[in-house]
């Protein structure tokens, strides 16, 4: 791997920015160059939120990803907005609980994971984001599994430390998908 550029997108509140931060932190622990950049704009609750994450062996130029190697889409507007931007040969993972569409493109690796349903079934409501990140890393091995685990306490805020175990469970479940 030299450089992997990712776009993570969905509704505000689904935890895409958090999921992106996990990947960036894990890359940092692996000793890679990393950047994380949120889309910021006149957004509202329930609107779309996305972030760009770059994990690279070399210095990162623009942290804003326009042609991602990887797309994680957790709602339909995000899927429709970004699917055509994905590089040929890129990887697309959707939360198929939220997105019924399927790509017409055949030049990408596509995975549909009903992450929101899986999270609810396992008592991990709100952690579909982590399940999808874990699935992504299982498929592409962007960062080491240990680093992804180690990134969890770095990203979970102090007042949510009780969520650490749930996050780790979500990582394990994601890796089984």
């Amino acid at each position, binding site marked *: 791997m030299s450089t992997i550029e990712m776009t993570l997108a969905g509704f505000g509140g689904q935890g895409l920015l958090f999921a992106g931060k996990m990947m960036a932190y894990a890359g940092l622990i692996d000793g890679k160059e990393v950047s994380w950049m949120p889309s910021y*704009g006149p957004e509202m609750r329930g609107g779309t939120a996305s972030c760009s994450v770059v994990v690279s062996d070399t210095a990162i*130029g623009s942290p804003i990803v*326009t042609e991602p190697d990887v797309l994680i889409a957790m709602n339909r507007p995000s899927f429709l907005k970004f699917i055509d931007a994905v590089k040929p040969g890129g990887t697309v993972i959707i939360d198929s609980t939220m997105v019924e569409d399927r790509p017409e493109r055949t030049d990408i690796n596509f995975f549909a994971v009903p992450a929101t349903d899986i999270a609810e079934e396992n008592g991990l409501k709100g952690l579909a984001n982590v399940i999808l990140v874990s699935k992504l890393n299982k498929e592409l091995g962007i960062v080491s599994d240990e680093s992804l685990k180690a990134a969890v306490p770095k990203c979970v805020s102090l007042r949510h430390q009780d969520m650490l175990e749930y996050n780790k469970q979500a990582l394990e479940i994601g890796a089984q998908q």
Partner: protein
Amino acid sequence: MKGNEAMAESAIRAGCRFFFGYPITPQTEVSAYMSKVMPKIGGLFLQAESEVAAINMVYGASSAGARVMTSSSSPGISLKSEGVSYLCGSDLPAVFANVERGGPGLGSIQPSQSDYYQATRGLGHGDFHVLVYAPSTVQETADLIYMAFDKADEYRMPAMLLTDGMIGQMMEPVVLPDPIEKLPEKPWATNGTGMKRVHNISNSLYLDAQKLEDIVVNREKRYDKIRATEQKYEAYRTEDAEIVVVAFGASARISRNAVDAAREEGIKAGLFRPISLWPFPNDALLEIAKSARTFLSVEMNMGQMVDDIRLAIHDTRDVNFFGHTGGVIPQSSEVLACIQKLEAGEHVHMVPFHSRYTGGDQ
């Protein structure tokens, strides 16, 4: 850490204990961070009723000898510019940050570098300059704001961090500087005489024209010293470069990738990155012009730095331009395409206005 948060934390470590803010995207994290941390360390965070009020509170705190800061984004900096002129007129140190967004007017809230002229030329009325530093990474944001406090005190003038929505919003790894241990003495501060000295006055009004001229000329001598000693830059792969890209801040990190890609194709390209925009690193750029064939300015504006490059190299080489503005981010592939054109002997004038600068084919 986010660039904006790294800026705030580093400012605190530099001894800043007063922050007067007013929220504006994409700068708000600076204020938010200060509001959280300042009360815990005995500092003051105050959200002013307006930008104009905030910069005048900066004036007050600076007069009293404190390390003080404010931050804003483009339209807010325009409002603060009156106060900046007064700070300069009273020889008061202060640090402020402009996390630029698209302009003019309310413009957009996306990253931009279109306040270059304002920062380096016209930040308010009167004969004055402010120190201007342009970080291109989160790490450099932390390093430069820390240094800005020292330089502001050393020269008794405002120092500005000119960054943008990209550098401010992005997260990158950062190593923060150690907290400062000893702050410089400020015998000029209006912090009470203790009945032991003549009282100090902080003032920018001189009704006697001759007196004002003397003061402005004296201040200019200080500026000359700064021009001679405070030019900061990074030269990357420029030793044997024929095509030298000149870019600062966010556009420099994009250009750096383009330079690397060009080198892989065997094109002798390099990157010159001004870190201090005022004083502009004239001397180093003039030296590079002796061996370079042509220059390409890459900016997130309509080519505002082109003037400074031309002045620095005494118009001895063509200065081409490529940029985006309004919040659109240049891609390194676009910059590479420009370098390839220059390698083929063509000119690059993305903006027709600049065609008159090249003396070339127009």
